[in-house]
């Protein structure tokens, strides 16, 4: 079991973001958390990462209770919705960051860091852009830098928060397919948050639909399509944007969103 959640709850003031959420993610699996905004999917991702602390329940990563571990000790890679690249660092330095901040004893040599970063930039098809600054890249390119940066620390679990949310429809489609291929290549356990159920079904091995802080249903895309558990689910899966152009984009389209 790669990630195991046991009755995890989280409240913000009087708002219940997570209500006794339990589910398991297998090693190497790609699971999508999908649901309308406010359903708790992003909060769940941040709880797994350790960026938020749950009020109750247990998060286990590779069998160990993650409670005593901060976000930096959980061996997770997090890709933020708006990438959160370090704006004053080059692409190369962004990707190298996780290696450079290691304690001296565990830090790879300079040559080793260069090699790892080069390989990662090749992997995300940005080999030539290592010297650029984030603002000089398109949205899709920034997204891939964020992914390479998260992978650099060799995470046991990769967490992606609306990774395509700020991209335009065409780039989204491309990146989706690309991400699926990458996952088949790298095989790291991945949790992806999205509000687009079509996206979730296309990319993920299993889809967990969240509603009002609970996992309303979890299964493969086929299973969900065959028998939606509740009327709400059926409606949500149906209403979800079939045409990507109609997708809700709560935070608008990123500037220059072509790769």
């Amino acid at each position, binding site marked *: 079991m790669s990630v195991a959640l046991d009755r995890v709850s989280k409240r913000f003031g009087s708002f219940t973001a997570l209500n006794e959420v339990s589910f398991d993610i297998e090693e190497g699996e790609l699971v999508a958390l999908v649901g309308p905004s406010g359903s708790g999917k*992003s909060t769940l991702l*941040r709880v797994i*990462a*350790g*960026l938020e602390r749950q009020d109750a329940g247990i998060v286990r990563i590779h069998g160990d209770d993650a409670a005593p571990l*901060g*976000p*930096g*000790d959980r061996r*997770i*890679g*997090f890709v*933020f*919705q*708006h990438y*959160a*690249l*370090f*704006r*004053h*660092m*080059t692409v190369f330095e962004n990707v190298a*960051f*996780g290696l450079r*901040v*290691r304690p001296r004893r565990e830090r790879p040599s300079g040559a080793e860091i260069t090699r790892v970063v080069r390989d990662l930039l090749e992997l995300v098809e940005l080999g*030539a852009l290592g*010297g*650029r600054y984030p*603002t*000089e890249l398109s949205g899709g390119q920034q997204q891939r830098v964020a992914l390479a*940066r*998260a992978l*650099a*620390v060799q995470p046991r679990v990769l967490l992606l*928060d609306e990774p395509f949310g700020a991209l335009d429809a065409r780039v989204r489609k491309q990146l989706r397919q690309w991400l699926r291929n990458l996952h088949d290549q790298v095989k790291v356990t991945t949790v992806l948050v999205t509000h687009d159920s079509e996206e979730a079904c296309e990319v993920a091995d299993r889809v967990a639909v969240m509603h009002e802080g609970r996992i309303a249903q979890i299964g493969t895309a086929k299973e969900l399509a065959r028998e939606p558990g509740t009327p709400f689910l059926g409606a949500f899966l149906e209403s979800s944007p079939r045409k990507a152009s109609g997708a809700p984009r709560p*935070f*608008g389209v990123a*500037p220059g969103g072509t790769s």
Partner: protein
Amino acid sequence: MSTTSVPTAARHGIPPGARARRQTAHVPTSERDIARGVLITAALAYLFLSLGLPLFVVFHEAFKKGVGAYLTALRDPELLRALRLTLLVAGIAVPLNVTFGIAAAWAITKGKVRGRTLLIALADLPLAVSPVIAGLTFMLLFGMQGWFGPWLKAHDIQIAFTVSAVVLATIFVTLPFVARELIPLMEEQGVVEEEAAVTLGASGWQIFRRVTLPNIRWGLLYGVVLCNARAMGEFGAVSVVSGRIRGQTTTLPLHIEILYNEYDFTAAFAASSLLALLAVVTLAAKHLLERSHHVARARIIEEQHERES
């Protein structure tokens, strides 16, 4: 997920006025040019009258009796002591308030502290209070008849009319500058980069050194320049608490006033020219730092383009 979206235009480096300018494009060109000319002339005249002319007068008066008299005035031991005290006071107050300013701005914008409004208001207090009042407050606290006066006297500690009082008053007056500069900047930048750094395993200090500090460095530099200018130029508060003991607690501004009151205009303006020079040096240092950064940045970009083409 906290959403701190930078306005698209700002992220692209488009100046905020660019759109407004385009919208006024239908105004006939000649009319617009005249308006622009008048505005620029007015602004330049205003700048010259309020900034250029006084600066010119300072140096003109200082050199009125020749370079020799100017140099003699500068060699006066009391003036040199005042200069040394001014540098000492700035040297203590500025680093302290830089530390405080960064800590306060960090706590207010990145931490989850309660009573942030109160904290911001408190940090603003020295700007709202007249420096003379601030000085008097210090006297009411530490003076002989002040609240802590008897206790201080019993323990043989003298604060009022000493260098300590000058330093304390200067710290108080210059407290807001760095914090005020950083709070809006850090608020706009949000915490996402810090969160990214923490998931990558960076420690608190590494996050500050490698992520937060580089992102605020230009705002910080500007805050330091303002703080330093005020620390070296402060008159009111320092005047009250120092007791103006000549050659002991007089900073440059106080010393200038003493000389001026004694009709020693050459010396007064020579000392003023020193203060003006310190200001110019500070601004030049800031400018050079910024330029070296931009030059380095431009070179990197240029090299990239060359490599790609």
